[in-house]
C-alpha cells in the first residue's frame, strides 16, 4: 500500500524497535515482511483478512510485556484479552475465539498467576469470546521479567462490512471514543520511578460494543483503529499514508485529562504519542459524524468521545495539528523514544 518500504539498517535490535514508531516499522518492513511477506500480511493492518468458503475471517496476534504486571485500572491479563479483541473489533469482526500463551519466569507467585487468569476470564466474558486454546512455558529465573502473555484471536466479518483506508474520502471526520494517553501515563506513573503522585488509571477496555455501534452506520463508517503503542499520532500517520490523504487535527478538540497533560508536560512527552488500550479511532463520512458521535457517547465507555479532526487532500501522507494557539504543525510518527514497556 505504501510506495516506499522502510529499510532496516541497524545491526542489533534496540528498545527503539519496540516503541511502535519508525524503528518498529523498519524492523517489520525491512526484516519480517521481507522474509515472510505474502498477500495476507502485506496490508500490515491490525488483523489479517482471510476468505474461507465465502466467509471473511479476521485473524490477529499480540504479545504483552507490560511492567508492572499489575497497574491502576488493570493488569497484563485483561490487557492481553482486550488488546486482541480490540484488534478484531476495529477490523469490523465479531470475535469467535482467543488463544493465550504464557511465558512464566521460575519463581512467579501462583497467586498472581491466578489473579491474572481471573482477570482474563472476566475480560473474555465481557467480550463474549472464549479463550479456546492455550500454552504455558516456564523459563529459568532471570530469563523473563515475571510473565509475558501472547494472545491471538479469530473473528468473523459480516458480508456487508467494508472497512479500509481505501474508503476514506476528503471531508471525512476523525473521532476518538474517549480521553487519550491514560493507559501509557498510568503505567509509567505506576512504575514508581518518577515519584509522582497522580490519580490516573489505565483505560484498558474492550471496544467491541463501540465498534458495533459504528458498524451500524454502514458505508458511512470508513475505517477504525485502536490507537495502542505509538498512540493516536502513529495510528493517524499510518492512516494518512495508507489512504494518501492529509489528516488535520484540532488541538482544542483533543480529549486529554489534565492529569495526563500535566504528567506529559513534566516528562516532555506528547500525549498524542501515548498508548491507549481501550479507545477507538474512527473515520466516518461528514454527514454521519453527528450520528457516530451520538452512538459513541450513548455508551459509558464512549461518554468522552469527540470529533478531533478531518480528512483533506493536501499535503498527502501527513498529519497536521492546528494548535489552540492559532498555529499549525506536523505530527510525525514516533521516533523511538526510550519509553518504558507499557503493553
Amino acid at each position: 500500500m505504501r510506495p516506499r518500504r522502510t529499510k532496516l539498517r541497524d545491526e542489533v535490535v534496540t528498545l527503539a524497535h519496540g516503541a511502535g514508531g519508525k524503528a518498529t516499522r523498519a524492523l517489520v518492513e525491512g526484516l519480517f515482511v521481507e522474509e515472510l511477506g505474502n498477500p495476507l500480511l502485506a496490508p500490515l493492518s491490525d488483523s489479517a483478512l482471510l476468505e474461507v468458503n465465502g466467509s471473511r475471517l479476521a485473524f490477529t496476534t499480540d504479545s504483552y510485556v507490560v511492567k508492572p504486571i499489575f497497574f491502576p485500572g488493570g493488569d497484563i491479563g485483561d490487557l492481553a484479552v482486550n488488546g486482541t479483541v480490540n484488534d478484531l473489533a476495529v477490523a469490523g469482526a465479531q470475535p469467535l475465539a482467543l488463544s493465550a500463551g504464557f511465558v512464566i519466569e521460575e519463581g512467579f507467585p501462583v497467586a498472581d498467576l491466578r489473579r491474572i487468569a481471573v482477570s482474563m476470564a472476566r475480560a473474555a466474558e465481557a467480550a463474549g469470546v472464549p479463550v479456546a486454546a492455550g500454552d504455558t512455558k516456564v523459563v529459568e529465573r532471570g530469563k523473563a521479567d515475571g510473565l509475558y502473555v501472547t494472545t491471538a484471536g479469530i473473528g468473523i466479518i459480516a458480508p456487508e462490512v467494508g472497512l479500509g483506508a481505501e474508503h476514506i474520502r476528503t471531508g471525512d471526520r476523525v473521532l476518538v471514543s474517549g480521553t487519550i494517553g491514560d493507559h501509557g501515563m498510568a503505567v509509567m506513573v505506576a512504575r514508581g520511578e518518577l515519584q509522582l503522585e497522580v490519580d490516573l488509571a489505565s483505560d484498558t477496555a474492550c471496544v467491541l460494543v463501540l465498534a458495533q455501534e459504528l458498524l451500524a452506520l454502514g458505508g458511512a463508517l470508513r475505517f477504525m483503529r485502536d490507537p495502542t503503542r505509538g498512540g493516536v499520532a502513529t495510528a493517524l500517520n499510518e492512516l494518512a499514508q495508507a489512504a494518501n490523504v492529509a489528516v488535520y487535527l484540532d488541538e482544542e478538540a483533543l480529549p486529554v485529562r489534565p492529569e495526563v497533560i500535566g504528567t506529559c508536560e513534566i516528562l516532555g512527552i506528547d500525549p498524542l504519542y501515548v498508548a491507549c488500550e481501550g479507545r477507538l479511532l474512527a473515520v466516518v463520512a461528514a454527514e454521519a459524524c453527528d450520528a457516530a458521535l451520538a452512538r459513541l457517547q450513548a455508551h459509558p465507555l464512549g461518554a468522552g468521545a469527540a470529533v478531533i479532526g478531518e480528512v483533506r487532500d493536501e499535503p498527502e501522507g501527513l498529519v497536521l495539528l492546528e494548535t489552540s494557539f492559532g498555529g499549525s504543525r506536523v505530527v510525525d510518527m514516533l521516533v523511538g523514544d526510550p519509553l518504558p514497556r507499557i503493553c
Partner: protein
Amino acid sequence: MKFVDEFRSGALAQKLVHELEASVEPGRALKFMEVCGGHTHTIYKHGIEDLVPPEIDFLHGPGCPVCVIPMGRVDDAIALAERPDVIFTTFGDMMRVPGGRGSLLEAKARGADVRMVYSPLDALELARRNPDREVIFFAIGFETTAPSTAITVLRAQAEGISNFSAFCNHVTIGPPLKTILDSPGLQLDGFIAPGHVSTVVGTRPYDFMARDYGKPVVVTAFEPIDILHATVMLVRQLRDGRCEVENQYTRVVKRDGNPRALAVLDQTMELRDTFEWRGLGWIERSALKLRPEFAQWDAEARFELPGTRVEDPKACQCGEVLVGAIKPWECKVFGTACTPERPIGTCMVSSEGACAAYYNYGRLAKRRERVPA
C-alpha cells in the same frame, strides 16, 4: 490558575500578534535568535511562525545541551559504559546521540549496562543499592543542570559513597554566545535569551551582548505566549532605539540568578581551559570540570578514558545551523541522509535540536513566504 493553559491562550496571542503587526516596518526583515532549544521546540510545537508577521524570522541557536556534545565525548561515554563493572546512567535524550561508533542505546543493546535516569540523585541511589558496581553519571547541560550534578557530588561526599562518579561535560552559556556574535557575516537583530539557565546565572552574563555588540536581549520563558511577548519586547527595543538586556521571565529569573546554586557550582567545579563544542569547535573557558578535591567522584580522574577525537561529519552543517547562518532545511543532508531515526548531526537527535524540531513539526515552514533579508 493551571500554570499552563494561561500561557497558551489563543486570544492573548492575538493581542500580541496585533502589536507585532503594528510595530514592524513592512518589508524590513528582522532576524531574532532563540538561543535555547526549548524555545525552538515551543516555536514549532505551537506553530508560532504561522502567527508572526513574515518580516520576523527565528534563527535557532546553540542552546540544546545534547546537541553541542562532540562525538568524541559520546565515544568516551560508551567506553565507560562498556566497562563490565560499570552502571552508566544518562538522561534519556543522550541515549540516541551518535558518536563515532554508535550511540549509548546501541551500546546497551550490545550488553552495556546503560540506564536512563531523571536526575543525578537517581544515579546516586543506584550507587547506594549496588555497592559492588561503579555508577557513572553522564553529566551534561549548561548551568541549568550543573548545580544538580554539584549537589549530587556533595551528597556522595557527605555520605561517603565512593562508587559514584560524574563524567562531567557541563558547559557555560556565555562563551558560545560570544562565538556566535564574533562569527563573520552574522545578521542578527536581537536575542531571545534562554530561560532555565538564567534562573541559575541571572541576566548579567548577557550584558556584554547589548553593551559590546549592540544587540537587544530578552531573557524569555518557555510557553508560546512568553515567546510572542519576548518578540514584542525586542521589536519595541528596536523601534525605540534601545539596546538592553530585558527580563521577560520575571516569574522565575532574578537579575543575580540563584546564589545558592551558583555557590555549590563554585564549590565543586572550575572552568576548563578549553572545550570542544559540536559544530562550533573549541571554545576557551566554556566548560566546567570537577575541582581536584572532588577527583574521587570525577569519572575522568577515576577511569582511563580513550580521549577520543572525532571530526564532525563533513556532510553535516550543524555548525552553520547553530550560528544561524543557514536554516535546518538548507543543510545538504537535512531530511535525506540525516533524519531523527538516523541522525548525522546532533541537531537532529534531541527534540530540542533545531533540525529535529524543524523535521518533526515545521517541515511545512519552508513553503511559507519570507521577506528577503
